[in-house]
Protein backbone atom coordinates (compact mmCIF):
# COMPACT_ATOMS: atom_id res chain seq x y z
CA UNK A 1 0.00 0.00 0.00
CA UNK A 2 2.73 2.39 0.99
CA UNK A 3 4.61 1.63 -2.20
CA UNK A 4 1.51 2.53 -4.23
CA UNK A 5 1.24 5.95 -2.64
CA UNK A 6 4.89 6.59 -3.22
CA UNK A 7 4.47 5.63 -6.86
CA UNK A 8 1.47 7.93 -7.19
CA UNK A 9 3.41 10.80 -5.69
CA UNK A 10 6.29 10.13 -8.02
CA UNK A 11 3.96 10.15 -11.01
CA UNK A 12 2.38 13.40 -9.82
CA UNK A 13 5.77 15.03 -9.47
CA UNK A 14 6.58 13.81 -12.95
CA UNK A 15 3.42 15.58 -14.19
CA UNK A 16 4.40 18.74 -12.35
CA UNK A 17 7.84 18.63 -13.89
CA UNK A 18 6.50 18.24 -17.42
CA UNK A 19 4.00 21.08 -16.86
CA UNK A 20 6.73 23.38 -15.61
CA UNK A 21 9.02 22.44 -18.47
CA UNK A 22 6.20 23.18 -20.93
CA UNK A 23 5.55 26.65 -19.56
CA UNK A 24 9.26 27.39 -19.38
CA UNK A 25 9.36 27.09 -23.16
CA UNK A 26 7.63 30.44 -23.20
CA UNK A 27 9.66 32.35 -20.68
CA UNK A 28 8.42 35.83 -21.55
CA UNK A 29 4.81 34.80 -21.52
CA UNK A 30 5.34 33.06 -18.20
CA UNK A 31 6.95 36.08 -16.61
CA UNK A 32 4.35 38.46 -17.96
CA UNK A 33 1.48 36.30 -16.81
CA UNK A 34 3.01 35.94 -13.36
CA UNK A 35 3.50 39.67 -13.23
CA UNK A 36 -0.05 40.13 -14.41
CA UNK A 37 -1.30 37.91 -11.61
CA UNK A 38 0.66 39.94 -9.11
CA UNK A 39 -0.66 43.25 -10.40
CA UNK A 40 -4.27 42.08 -10.46
CA UNK A 41 -4.08 41.20 -6.80
CA UNK A 42 -2.30 44.44 -6.18
CA UNK A 43 -5.27 46.33 -7.47
CA UNK A 44 -7.55 44.49 -5.11
CA UNK A 45 -5.19 45.50 -2.36
CA UNK A 46 -5.35 49.12 -3.56
CA UNK A 47 -9.11 48.97 -3.23
CA UNK A 48 -8.80 47.98 0.40
CA UNK A 49 -6.09 50.55 0.98
CA UNK A 50 -8.21 53.36 -0.40
CA UNK A 51 -11.15 52.32 1.74
CA UNK A 52 -9.03 52.31 4.87
CA UNK A 53 -7.59 55.70 4.13
CA UNK A 54 -11.09 56.95 4.61
CA UNK A 55 -12.39 54.60 7.28
CA UNK A 56 -10.53 53.79 10.46
CA UNK A 57 -12.02 50.34 10.70
CA UNK A 58 -14.92 48.26 9.47
CA UNK A 59 -17.22 46.81 12.09
CA UNK A 60 -14.41 46.97 14.58
CA UNK A 61 -11.78 45.31 12.43
CA UNK A 62 -8.69 47.36 11.67
CA UNK A 63 -6.64 47.67 8.50
CA UNK A 64 -3.94 45.30 9.72
CA UNK A 65 -6.50 42.72 10.75
CA UNK A 66 -8.27 42.91 7.40
CA UNK A 67 -4.95 42.51 5.61
CA UNK A 68 -4.20 39.42 7.60
CA UNK A 69 -7.61 38.06 6.76
CA UNK A 70 -7.34 38.87 3.07
CA UNK A 71 -3.82 37.57 2.65
CA UNK A 72 -4.56 34.19 4.20
CA UNK A 73 -7.60 33.76 1.97
CA UNK A 74 -5.65 34.82 -1.10
CA UNK A 75 -2.76 32.51 -0.29
CA UNK A 76 -5.11 29.58 0.16
CA UNK A 77 -6.93 30.36 -3.07
CA UNK A 78 -3.74 30.68 -5.08
CA UNK A 79 -2.34 27.46 -3.66
CA UNK A 80 -5.53 25.67 -4.58
CA UNK A 81 -5.44 27.21 -8.04
CA UNK A 82 -1.84 26.30 -8.61
CA UNK A 83 -2.40 22.65 -7.85
CA UNK A 84 -6.03 22.27 -8.76
CA UNK A 85 -6.20 24.16 -12.03
CA UNK A 86 -6.95 20.91 -13.81
CA UNK A 87 -10.29 20.79 -12.01
CA UNK A 88 -10.89 24.51 -12.23
CA UNK A 89 -10.57 24.40 -16.01
CA UNK A 90 -12.27 21.03 -16.37
CA UNK A 91 -15.11 22.23 -18.57
CA UNK A 92 -12.62 22.56 -21.41
CA UNK A 93 -11.56 18.99 -20.95
CA UNK A 94 -15.08 17.66 -21.22
CA UNK A 95 -15.94 19.88 -24.14
CA UNK A 96 -12.97 18.81 -26.27
CA UNK A 97 -13.25 15.18 -25.28
CA UNK A 98 -9.86 15.20 -23.63
CA UNK A 99 -11.33 13.41 -20.66
CA UNK A 100 -11.57 10.32 -22.85
CA UNK A 101 -7.78 10.45 -23.10
CA UNK A 102 -7.67 10.26 -19.35
CA UNK A 103 -10.00 7.30 -19.19
CA UNK A 104 -7.78 5.51 -21.68
CA UNK A 105 -4.83 5.57 -19.28
CA UNK A 106 -4.49 2.96 -16.54
CA UNK A 107 -4.32 5.49 -13.75
CA UNK A 108 -6.68 7.12 -11.31
CA UNK A 109 -8.55 9.97 -13.04
CA UNK A 110 -8.11 12.40 -10.18
CA UNK A 111 -4.36 12.00 -10.31
CA UNK A 112 -4.40 12.56 -14.05
CA UNK A 113 -6.65 15.61 -13.92
CA UNK A 114 -4.44 17.11 -11.22
CA UNK A 115 -1.44 16.33 -13.34
CA UNK A 116 -2.87 17.81 -16.50
CA UNK A 117 -2.28 21.35 -15.26
CA UNK A 118 0.09 22.86 -12.77
CA UNK A 119 0.11 26.60 -13.01
CA UNK A 120 3.31 28.00 -11.64
CA UNK A 121 2.21 31.48 -12.68
CA UNK A 122 -0.10 31.61 -9.69
CA UNK A 123 3.04 32.35 -7.74
CA UNK A 124 2.41 35.94 -8.76
CA UNK A 125 -0.71 36.05 -6.64
CA UNK A 126 0.96 34.09 -3.87
CA UNK A 127 3.76 36.61 -3.73
CA UNK A 128 1.24 39.41 -3.38
CA UNK A 129 -0.45 37.45 -0.62
CA UNK A 130 2.79 36.84 1.24
CA UNK A 131 3.72 40.53 1.13
CA UNK A 132 0.32 41.53 2.46
CA UNK A 133 0.54 38.79 5.06
CA UNK A 134 3.83 40.07 6.38
CA UNK A 135 2.43 43.59 6.48
CA UNK A 136 -0.71 42.39 8.20
CA UNK A 137 1.21 40.35 10.74
CA UNK A 138 3.34 43.29 11.76
CA UNK A 139 0.52 45.86 11.81
CA UNK A 140 -2.35 44.14 13.50
CA UNK A 141 -0.95 44.42 16.97
CA UNK A 142 -1.15 40.73 17.69
CA UNK A 143 1.08 39.18 20.33
CA UNK A 144 2.33 36.18 18.43
CA UNK A 145 2.94 32.89 20.18
CA UNK A 146 3.26 29.29 19.11
CA UNK A 147 -0.47 28.56 19.39
CA UNK A 148 -1.41 31.44 17.16
CA UNK A 149 1.12 30.48 14.54
CA UNK A 150 -0.18 26.92 14.51
CA UNK A 151 -3.67 28.32 14.10
CA UNK A 152 -2.60 30.23 11.01
CA UNK A 153 -0.94 27.12 9.63
CA UNK A 154 -4.11 25.10 10.17
CA UNK A 155 -6.07 27.88 8.49
CA UNK A 156 -3.91 27.54 5.41
CA UNK A 157 -4.36 23.81 5.28
CA UNK A 158 -8.11 23.91 5.86
CA UNK A 159 -8.69 26.85 3.51
CA UNK A 160 -6.79 25.27 0.66
CA UNK A 161 -8.78 22.08 1.21
CA UNK A 162 -12.05 24.01 0.91
CA UNK A 163 -11.07 25.67 -2.31
CA UNK A 164 -9.82 22.40 -3.77
CA UNK A 165 -13.11 20.81 -2.79
CA UNK A 166 -15.01 23.57 -4.54
CA UNK A 167 -12.98 23.06 -7.68
CA UNK A 168 -13.80 19.37 -7.57
CA UNK A 169 -17.51 20.18 -7.26
CA UNK A 170 -17.23 22.46 -10.27
CA UNK A 171 -15.50 19.79 -12.31
CA UNK A 172 -18.05 17.17 -11.27
CA UNK A 173 -20.88 19.43 -12.41
CA UNK A 174 -19.27 19.52 -15.84
CA UNK A 175 -20.27 15.90 -16.25
CA UNK A 176 -23.92 16.86 -16.02
CA UNK A 177 -24.06 20.11 -17.91
CA UNK A 178 -21.68 22.50 -19.54
CA UNK A 179 -23.98 25.48 -19.18
CA UNK A 180 -24.75 27.50 -16.15
CA UNK A 181 -21.56 26.47 -14.42
CA UNK A 182 -20.63 30.03 -13.62
CA UNK A 183 -22.81 29.83 -10.53
CA UNK A 184 -19.95 27.96 -8.91
CA UNK A 185 -17.85 31.07 -9.29
CA UNK A 186 -19.91 32.65 -6.55
CA UNK A 187 -18.34 30.22 -4.13
CA UNK A 188 -14.82 30.26 -5.44
CA UNK A 189 -14.19 33.75 -6.81
CA UNK A 190 -16.80 35.08 -4.45
CA UNK A 191 -14.90 33.73 -1.49
CA UNK A 192 -11.73 35.22 -2.82
CA UNK A 193 -13.38 38.60 -3.31
CA UNK A 194 -15.57 38.83 -0.25
CA UNK A 195 -13.41 36.73 1.99
CA UNK A 196 -11.21 39.81 2.06
CA UNK A 197 -13.12 40.93 5.08
CA UNK A 198 -13.83 38.88 8.18
CA UNK A 199 -17.12 37.13 7.57
CA UNK A 200 -18.49 38.69 10.73
CA UNK A 201 -19.10 41.98 8.95
CA UNK A 202 -21.72 40.36 6.77
CA UNK A 203 -24.05 39.54 9.58
CA UNK A 204 -25.38 36.50 11.36
CA UNK A 205 -27.05 34.69 8.46
CA UNK A 206 -23.92 34.79 6.35
CA UNK A 207 -21.92 33.50 9.28
CA UNK A 208 -24.24 30.53 9.65
CA UNK A 209 -24.02 29.77 5.94
CA UNK A 210 -20.26 29.99 6.09
CA UNK A 211 -20.14 27.59 8.99
CA UNK A 212 -22.61 24.96 7.96
CA UNK A 213 -22.85 24.91 4.19
CA UNK A 214 -19.37 25.83 3.04
CA UNK A 215 -17.14 26.00 6.09
CA UNK A 216 -15.31 29.24 5.29
CA UNK A 217 -15.87 30.62 8.76
CA UNK A 218 -14.05 27.65 10.22
CA UNK A 219 -10.89 28.64 8.38
CA UNK A 220 -11.24 32.40 8.47
CA UNK A 221 -13.45 34.11 11.00
CA UNK A 222 -13.36 31.98 14.14
CA UNK A 223 -9.67 31.09 14.20
CA UNK A 224 -8.84 34.69 13.37
CA UNK A 225 -10.82 35.84 16.41
CA UNK A 226 -8.48 33.62 18.41
CA UNK A 227 -5.40 34.97 16.70
CA UNK A 228 -6.50 38.55 17.29
CA UNK A 229 -7.02 37.78 20.93
CA UNK A 230 -10.74 38.52 20.93
CA UNK A 231 -11.55 34.96 21.93
CA UNK A 232 -9.44 32.58 23.94
CA UNK A 233 -11.04 29.14 23.64
CA UNK A 234 -8.36 26.64 22.63
CA UNK A 235 -10.63 24.58 20.41
CA UNK A 236 -10.53 27.45 17.94
CA UNK A 237 -6.97 26.48 17.13
CA UNK A 238 -8.09 23.16 15.72
CA UNK A 239 -11.34 24.31 14.15
CA UNK A 240 -9.84 24.81 10.67
CA UNK A 241 -8.88 21.16 10.52
CA UNK A 242 -12.56 20.28 10.42
CA UNK A 243 -12.59 21.79 6.96
CA UNK A 244 -10.49 18.84 5.81
CA UNK A 245 -13.72 16.86 5.87
CA UNK A 246 -15.24 19.11 3.23
CA UNK A 247 -13.52 17.52 0.20
CA UNK A 248 -15.02 14.14 1.05
CA UNK A 249 -18.55 14.77 -0.28
CA UNK A 250 -16.96 16.63 -3.19
CA UNK A 251 -14.99 13.56 -4.20
CA UNK A 252 -18.10 11.44 -3.89
CA UNK A 253 -19.85 13.75 -6.29
CA UNK A 254 -16.88 13.44 -8.63
CA UNK A 255 -17.05 9.67 -8.61
CA UNK A 256 -20.77 9.83 -9.32
CA UNK A 257 -20.09 12.21 -12.19
CA UNK A 258 -17.43 9.98 -13.74
CA UNK A 259 -19.79 7.03 -13.67
CA UNK A 260 -22.49 9.07 -15.32
CA UNK A 261 -20.05 10.21 -17.99
CA UNK A 262 -19.18 6.62 -18.69
CA UNK A 263 -22.78 5.65 -19.16
CA UNK A 264 -23.96 8.59 -21.20
CA UNK A 265 -20.97 9.41 -23.37
CA UNK A 266 -20.00 12.97 -24.14
Amino acid at each position, binding site marked *: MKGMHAKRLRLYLHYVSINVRSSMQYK*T*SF*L*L*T*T*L*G*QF*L*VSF*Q*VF*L*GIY*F*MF*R*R*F*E*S*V*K*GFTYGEVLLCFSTMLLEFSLAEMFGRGFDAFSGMVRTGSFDQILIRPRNEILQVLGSKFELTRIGRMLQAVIMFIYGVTHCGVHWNFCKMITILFMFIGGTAIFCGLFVIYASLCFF*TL*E*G*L*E*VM*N*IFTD*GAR*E*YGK*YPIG*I*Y*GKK*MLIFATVVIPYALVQYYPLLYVWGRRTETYLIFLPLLALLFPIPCLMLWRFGVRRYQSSGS
Partner: protein
Amino acid sequence: MKKYLSFFRLRFLTGLQYRTAALAGIATQFAWGFLEIMVMKAFYETDPGVYPMTFRATVSYIWLQQAFLAFFAVWMVDSELFEMISNGNIAYELCRPIRIYSMMTARNLANRTSRAVLRCLPILLVAAFLPKPFRMEPPVGIAEFLLFVVTMLLGLSVTVAFFMLVYVLAFYTISPQGLRIVFCSLVEFLSGGVIPLPFFPEPVLRVLELLPFASMQNVPLRIYSGDIAGEEMVRAVGLQVFWLVALVVVGSMLCRMAERKVALQGG
Protein backbone atom coordinates in the same frame (compact mmCIF):
# COMPACT_ATOMS: atom_id res chain seq x y z
CA MET B 1 -26.25 49.71 -42.72
CA LYS B 2 -28.34 46.58 -43.26
CA LYS B 3 -25.27 44.37 -43.18
CA TYR B 4 -24.26 45.67 -39.78
CA LEU B 5 -27.77 44.99 -38.55
CA SER B 6 -27.47 41.39 -39.67
CA PHE B 7 -24.12 41.01 -37.91
CA PHE B 8 -25.85 42.39 -34.86
CA ARG B 9 -28.80 40.04 -35.26
CA LEU B 10 -26.61 36.94 -35.62
CA ARG B 11 -24.60 37.67 -32.51
CA PHE B 12 -27.75 38.58 -30.63
CA LEU B 13 -29.45 35.30 -31.48
CA THR B 14 -26.39 33.30 -30.52
CA GLY B 15 -26.47 35.02 -27.18
CA LEU B 16 -30.12 34.09 -26.65
CA GLN B 17 -29.56 30.37 -27.23
CA TYR B 18 -28.08 29.69 -23.90
CA ARG B 19 -30.96 29.67 -21.51
CA THR B 20 -29.31 27.92 -18.58
CA ALA B 21 -26.30 30.10 -18.97
CA ALA B 22 -28.51 33.18 -18.74
CA LEU B 23 -30.26 31.95 -15.61
CA ALA B 24 -26.98 31.02 -14.02
CA GLY B 25 -25.55 34.37 -14.94
CA ILE B 26 -28.45 36.17 -13.33
CA ALA B 27 -28.11 34.16 -10.15
CA THR B 28 -24.38 34.78 -10.04
CA GLN B 29 -24.71 38.49 -10.55
CA PHE B 30 -27.39 38.65 -7.97
CA ALA B 31 -25.12 37.03 -5.44
CA TRP B 32 -22.28 39.39 -6.28
CA GLY B 33 -24.50 42.42 -5.98
CA PHE B 34 -25.77 41.20 -2.64
CA LEU B 35 -22.31 40.59 -1.25
CA GLU B 36 -20.99 43.89 -2.55
CA ILE B 37 -23.84 45.79 -0.90
CA MET B 38 -23.14 44.01 2.35
CA VAL B 39 -19.53 45.13 2.28
CA MET B 40 -20.49 48.72 1.59
CA LYS B 41 -23.16 48.53 4.25
CA ALA B 42 -20.59 47.39 6.81
CA PHE B 43 -18.41 50.37 5.99
CA TYR B 44 -21.36 52.73 6.00
CA GLU B 45 -22.58 51.56 9.37
CA THR B 46 -19.10 51.87 10.82
CA ASP B 47 -18.70 55.52 9.91
CA PRO B 48 -21.46 57.23 7.89
CA GLY B 49 -19.71 60.56 8.34
CA VAL B 50 -16.87 59.84 5.95
CA TYR B 51 -18.98 57.88 3.50
CA PRO B 52 -18.72 59.86 0.25
CA MET B 53 -22.05 58.91 -1.30
CA THR B 54 -25.50 58.37 0.11
CA PHE B 55 -26.17 54.75 0.85
CA ARG B 56 -29.16 54.85 -1.46
CA ALA B 57 -26.92 55.97 -4.29
CA THR B 58 -24.46 53.17 -3.52
CA VAL B 59 -27.18 50.54 -3.63
CA SER B 60 -28.52 51.69 -6.96
CA TYR B 61 -24.95 51.98 -8.29
CA ILE B 62 -24.27 48.37 -7.41
CA TRP B 63 -27.52 46.98 -8.78
CA LEU B 64 -27.25 48.91 -12.00
CA GLN B 65 -23.66 47.80 -12.29
CA GLN B 66 -24.68 44.16 -12.02
CA ALA B 67 -27.71 44.50 -14.26
CA PHE B 68 -25.71 46.11 -17.05
CA LEU B 69 -22.46 44.32 -16.36
CA ALA B 70 -22.20 43.18 -19.95
CA PHE B 71 -22.28 46.77 -21.18
CA PHE B 72 -19.09 47.75 -19.44
CA ALA B 73 -17.40 44.41 -18.93
CA VAL B 74 -13.67 44.52 -19.52
CA TRP B 75 -13.17 40.78 -19.47
CA MET B 76 -15.34 40.16 -22.48
CA VAL B 77 -12.81 39.22 -25.10
CA ASP B 78 -14.02 38.40 -28.54
CA SER B 79 -11.52 35.59 -28.93
CA GLU B 80 -12.89 34.70 -32.33
CA LEU B 81 -12.02 38.18 -33.52
CA PHE B 82 -8.58 38.08 -31.98
CA GLU B 83 -7.87 34.80 -33.68
CA MET B 84 -9.03 36.13 -37.02
CA ILE B 85 -6.66 39.03 -36.66
CA SER B 86 -3.68 37.05 -35.46
CA ASN B 87 -3.87 34.33 -38.09
CA GLY B 88 -4.69 36.72 -40.89
CA ASN B 89 -8.15 35.44 -41.69
CA ILE B 90 -9.37 38.96 -41.15
CA ALA B 91 -8.18 39.53 -44.68
CA TYR B 92 -11.25 37.65 -45.89
CA GLU B 93 -13.39 40.34 -44.34
CA LEU B 94 -11.69 42.85 -46.61
CA CYS B 95 -13.17 41.01 -49.55
CA ARG B 96 -16.58 41.99 -48.36
CA PRO B 97 -17.95 45.46 -48.93
CA ILE B 98 -17.68 46.50 -45.28
CA ARG B 99 -15.43 48.62 -43.17
CA ILE B 100 -13.66 46.51 -40.59
CA TYR B 101 -13.97 49.12 -37.86
CA SER B 102 -17.72 49.28 -38.23
CA MET B 103 -17.97 45.52 -38.40
CA MET B 104 -16.00 45.04 -35.20
CA THR B 105 -17.99 47.77 -33.47
CA ALA B 106 -21.30 46.21 -34.49
CA ARG B 107 -20.10 42.82 -33.27
CA ASN B 108 -18.98 44.17 -29.94
CA LEU B 109 -22.13 46.23 -29.41
CA ALA B 110 -24.26 43.21 -30.22
CA ASN B 111 -22.30 40.98 -27.85
CA ARG B 112 -22.72 43.37 -24.99
CA THR B 113 -26.32 44.26 -25.68
CA SER B 114 -27.56 40.70 -26.08
CA ARG B 115 -25.95 39.68 -22.86
CA ALA B 116 -27.25 42.68 -20.98
CA VAL B 117 -30.79 42.44 -22.32
CA LEU B 118 -31.34 38.98 -20.92
CA ARG B 119 -30.09 39.88 -17.51
CA CYS B 120 -30.92 43.47 -16.74
CA LEU B 121 -34.68 43.23 -16.34
CA PRO B 122 -34.80 40.24 -13.97
CA ILE B 123 -32.06 41.68 -11.79
CA LEU B 124 -33.61 45.12 -11.60
CA LEU B 125 -37.09 43.80 -11.01
CA VAL B 126 -36.01 41.64 -8.10
CA ALA B 127 -33.77 44.38 -6.75
CA ALA B 128 -36.72 46.75 -6.69
CA PHE B 129 -38.61 44.50 -4.31
CA LEU B 130 -35.91 43.55 -1.86
CA PRO B 131 -36.16 44.46 1.83
CA LYS B 132 -35.12 47.94 2.81
CA PRO B 133 -31.38 48.35 2.91
CA PHE B 134 -30.90 46.32 -0.25
CA ARG B 135 -33.73 47.77 -2.22
CA MET B 136 -33.09 49.58 -5.45
CA GLU B 137 -34.86 52.91 -5.41
CA PRO B 138 -36.68 54.27 -8.45
CA PRO B 139 -35.08 57.22 -10.25
CA VAL B 140 -35.17 60.54 -8.44
CA GLY B 141 -36.91 62.30 -11.30
CA ILE B 142 -37.91 62.15 -14.95
CA ALA B 143 -35.07 64.40 -16.06
CA GLU B 144 -32.51 62.32 -14.18
CA PHE B 145 -33.89 59.17 -15.70
CA LEU B 146 -33.74 60.44 -19.26
CA LEU B 147 -30.25 61.71 -18.66
CA PHE B 148 -29.41 58.32 -17.22
CA VAL B 149 -30.54 56.57 -20.38
CA VAL B 150 -28.59 58.94 -22.57
CA THR B 151 -25.42 58.66 -20.54
CA MET B 152 -25.75 54.88 -20.41
CA LEU B 153 -25.70 54.76 -24.18
CA LEU B 154 -22.81 57.18 -24.20
CA GLY B 155 -20.97 55.11 -21.60
CA LEU B 156 -21.53 51.94 -23.60
CA SER B 157 -20.24 53.65 -26.72
CA VAL B 158 -17.15 54.95 -24.97
CA THR B 159 -16.46 51.46 -23.64
CA VAL B 160 -16.84 49.87 -27.05
CA ALA B 161 -14.79 52.59 -28.73
CA PHE B 162 -12.05 52.11 -26.18
CA PHE B 163 -11.88 48.38 -26.67
CA MET B 164 -11.91 48.87 -30.41
CA LEU B 165 -8.47 50.37 -29.87
CA VAL B 166 -7.39 47.13 -28.26
CA TYR B 167 -8.60 45.11 -31.25
CA VAL B 168 -7.08 47.51 -33.71
CA LEU B 169 -3.76 47.38 -31.90
CA ALA B 170 -3.88 43.61 -32.31
CA PHE B 171 -3.35 44.27 -36.00
CA TYR B 172 -0.02 45.79 -35.23
CA THR B 173 1.26 43.58 -32.47
CA ILE B 174 0.20 40.45 -30.70
CA SER B 175 0.07 41.39 -27.06
CA PRO B 176 0.91 38.57 -24.71
CA GLN B 177 -1.78 37.35 -22.37
CA GLY B 178 -0.04 38.68 -19.28
CA LEU B 179 -0.21 42.26 -20.56
CA ARG B 180 -3.85 41.85 -21.46
CA ILE B 181 -4.67 40.69 -17.94
CA VAL B 182 -2.98 43.69 -16.37
CA PHE B 183 -4.54 46.06 -18.83
CA CYS B 184 -8.08 44.78 -18.38
CA SER B 185 -7.94 44.81 -14.61
CA LEU B 186 -6.47 48.30 -14.68
CA VAL B 187 -9.35 49.52 -16.80
CA GLU B 188 -11.81 47.86 -14.48
CA PHE B 189 -10.20 49.48 -11.46
CA LEU B 190 -10.00 52.95 -12.93
CA SER B 191 -13.54 52.97 -14.27
CA GLY B 192 -15.11 52.32 -10.90
CA GLY B 193 -15.64 48.61 -11.32
CA VAL B 194 -13.90 47.57 -8.11
CA ILE B 195 -14.87 50.40 -5.82
CA PRO B 196 -16.94 53.37 -6.98
CA LEU B 197 -14.77 56.32 -7.90
CA PRO B 198 -15.98 58.61 -5.10
CA PHE B 199 -14.17 56.32 -2.66
CA PHE B 200 -10.82 57.11 -4.18
CA PRO B 201 -8.72 59.71 -2.36
CA GLU B 202 -9.41 63.26 -3.54
CA PRO B 203 -6.24 64.01 -5.54
CA VAL B 204 -6.42 60.69 -7.36
CA LEU B 205 -10.08 61.21 -8.10
CA ARG B 206 -9.48 64.57 -9.72
CA VAL B 207 -7.09 62.99 -12.23
CA LEU B 208 -9.22 59.92 -12.82
CA GLU B 209 -12.29 61.95 -13.68
CA LEU B 210 -10.54 63.29 -16.75
CA LEU B 211 -9.60 59.88 -18.12
CA PRO B 212 -11.83 57.97 -20.56
CA PHE B 213 -12.42 55.26 -17.95
CA ALA B 214 -14.47 57.58 -15.82
CA SER B 215 -16.73 58.16 -18.82
CA MET B 216 -17.71 54.53 -19.02
CA GLN B 217 -19.90 53.21 -16.20
CA ASN B 218 -19.06 55.83 -13.63
CA VAL B 219 -21.12 58.67 -15.08
CA PRO B 220 -24.46 56.99 -15.82
CA LEU B 221 -24.53 54.87 -12.68
CA ARG B 222 -24.16 57.95 -10.52
CA ILE B 223 -26.39 60.23 -12.53
CA TYR B 224 -29.26 57.82 -11.90
CA SER B 225 -29.28 58.51 -8.19
CA GLY B 226 -28.38 62.14 -8.53
CA ASP B 227 -24.91 61.57 -7.15
CA ILE B 228 -23.60 63.61 -10.02
CA ALA B 229 -25.69 66.74 -10.50
CA GLY B 230 -25.57 70.31 -11.62
CA GLU B 231 -22.31 71.66 -12.94
CA GLU B 232 -20.46 68.44 -12.27
CA MET B 233 -23.02 66.62 -14.39
CA VAL B 234 -22.59 68.94 -17.34
CA ARG B 235 -18.84 68.45 -17.18
CA ALA B 236 -19.18 64.68 -16.94
CA VAL B 237 -21.47 64.39 -19.95
CA GLY B 238 -19.25 66.72 -21.91
CA LEU B 239 -16.26 64.53 -21.16
CA GLN B 240 -18.20 61.48 -22.28
CA VAL B 241 -18.95 63.04 -25.62
CA PHE B 242 -15.38 64.23 -25.98
CA TRP B 243 -13.90 60.81 -25.32
CA LEU B 244 -16.39 59.09 -27.59
CA VAL B 245 -15.46 61.31 -30.49
CA ALA B 246 -11.73 61.11 -29.77
CA LEU B 247 -11.67 57.33 -29.43
CA VAL B 248 -13.76 56.73 -32.53
CA VAL B 249 -11.67 59.08 -34.63
CA VAL B 250 -8.37 57.58 -33.50
CA GLY B 251 -9.68 54.05 -33.68
CA SER B 252 -11.11 54.23 -37.16
CA MET B 253 -8.03 56.00 -38.41
CA LEU B 254 -5.73 53.33 -37.02
CA CYS B 255 -8.03 50.68 -38.39
CA ARG B 256 -7.99 52.22 -41.84
CA MET B 257 -4.19 52.21 -41.77
CA ALA B 258 -4.19 48.61 -40.63
CA GLU B 259 -6.58 47.65 -43.41
CA ARG B 260 -4.23 49.13 -45.92
CA LYS B 261 -1.32 47.26 -44.37
CA VAL B 262 -3.20 43.98 -44.50
CA ALA B 263 -4.22 44.56 -48.11
CA LEU B 264 -0.59 45.19 -49.05
CA GLN B 265 0.94 42.29 -47.15
CA GLY B 266 -1.85 39.80 -47.32
CA GLY B 267 -2.31 39.36 -43.57
